[in-house]
């Protein structure tokens, strides 16, 4: 266990320094800034949409349903697959390290990266929305806190799922895009019990339960939201199962590289 913790930490510290200066990071940052830019444009030009509506629609739909899964896909799918594609995994897997530490070390670095840029993107969105000249209730703390929490939880869970996809599939980006749009995008917006099969359902439940009435709008409201404890337990279990499965698979799998 000490070896696992030590190796995971070493891989984390090495990767976290590299991920922030990678080309992938530039793509992620550009994508993360989109909701704030749209919010700034609406706040500047619109005479009808107030600050709360901007945050609810752009935060709840654009940021949480599109940007968070896509960023998690771009960064998360690379956790292991980048080492496979770059053929550098050989250097790591011919060392006396627990193989699963590669998944955990690099995934934790990815979560830190995603957490940083998504927290900054959410803060910029709130800032941009607050410049709206349309009179409205002030942005209350519960709403803001719920958005931050949902964004960070979403980034954590999605990135773990996509990191595992990177171990299982040759083209994790394609698989991830299929999942993001077909399962998360489609299923989460169909009324009925199917919604509970998506991560989005739990993130929206979280915002509804923790963020107050502002989130109860068309496109975000759920028939039967999950309670806060249920959200934490379910997302925690999804995370644990995904990482445990990924750890098992990476330990057993052969990574046959071709020159």
């Amino acid at each position, binding site marked *: 266990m000490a070896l696992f913790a030590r190796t995971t930490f070493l891989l984390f510290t090495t990767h976290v320094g*590299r991920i922030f200066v990678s080309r992938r990071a530039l793509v992620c940052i550009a994508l993360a800034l989109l909701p704030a830019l749209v919010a700034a444009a609406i706040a500047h030009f619109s005479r009808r949409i107030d600050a709360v509506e901007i945050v609810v629609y752009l935060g709840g739909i654009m940021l949480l349903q599109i940007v968070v899964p896509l960023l998690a896909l771009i960064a998360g799918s690379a956790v292991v697959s980048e080492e496979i594609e770059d053929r550098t995994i050989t250097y790591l897997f011919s060392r006396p390290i627990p193989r699963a530490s590669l998944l955990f070390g690099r995934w934790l670095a990815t979560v830190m990266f995603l957490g940083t840029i998504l927290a900054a993107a959410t803060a910029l969105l709130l800032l941009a929305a607050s410049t709206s000249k349309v009179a409205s209730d002030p942005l209350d703390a519960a709403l803001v806190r719920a958005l931050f929490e949902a964004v960070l939880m979403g980034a954590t869970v999605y990135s773990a799922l996509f990191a595992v996809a990177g171990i299982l599939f040759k083209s994790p980006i394609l698989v991830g895009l299929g999942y993001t749009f077909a399962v998360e995008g489609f299923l989460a917006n169909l009324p009925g019990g199917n919604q509970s099969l998506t991560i989005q359902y739990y993130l929206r439940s979280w915002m509804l339960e923790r963020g107050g009435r502002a989130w109860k709008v068309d496109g975000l409201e759920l028939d039967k939201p999950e309670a806060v404890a249920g959200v934490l337990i379910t997302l925690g279990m999804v995370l644990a199962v995904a990482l445990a499965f990924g750890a098992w698979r990476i330990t057993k799998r052969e990574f046959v590289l071709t020159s």
Partner: protein
Amino acid sequence: MSAVFVAHELGRWYGPVVGLNDLSVSVPGGVFGLLGPNGAGKSTMLKLIAGEIRPSRGTIEVLGHQPFANREYFRQLGFCPQQDALYGDMSALDLVSFLTRLHGFSAVESRRRAASALERVKLTDSMHRRTREYSKGMRQRVKIAQAIAHDPKFLVVDEPLTGLDPVARRDMIALFGELGRAGVHVLISSHVLHEVESLTEEILLLHRGRLLAQGKVHEVRALLSRHPRKVEMRARESRRLARALLALPEVSSVAVAPDGLSLSLETRDVESFFTHLPEIALAERAGIESFESTDAGLEAVFDYLIG
């Protein structure tokens, strides 16, 4: 000396493609070469030895361990893969230090070992530059440095001299010799016979996934010289030359092309043939413009050996 590497009926295939088939071998250790043309199964064997893949059948033991994902074994292994892949955004020193730390050394000790390994491969002057700025030869030397920095007991290197200039080749050959003398078992894979010959006498010959021979290089050399070789020539007086060459006992056939200038012949003893050729060419005033041995490659030799 106990065997460093033992395989019994070892086989590995990728779907319908056979990488290695029914290979039984015991290698006593020291410095030894793994030789074979492209597609012979060398890379598959190295992947098995480096613990990257499992056998499809049979068994393999290296230093008494089954290699696949075996941490105890990896402590003693240094592996320099063939692929030209490094972390391009890291300097050679950072890269080798990082990989050495994965062996459990402290940050300070890893950096000291990395600097020492890079010095051994003559990269000290550029070890702070990012590896993406390196030439192919420099990257090759980084790969060797990362494989030796932790003082492995068994060093496995795949095509180590590829991309190196003559001076660097000489340095690397000296380094492998030095490691061998220090008691490190070294396995060097190559498809170039003379490359391996400059490193070791002991070789394993693979062809089409099978072990063809195990032994000394000079034994293979002997097979090489007995292998009938084709020689293509162009000469002003090719017909006269052909008649004279056919009288040599080592020449089995000669054919002159319709243009009357080119001729091709087959010889059973290429060394003896090339010894006699200048004398005959002079006597016949043949005016040889060019000549080449067209099937001197390892592939041709292996094809000959397996009949």
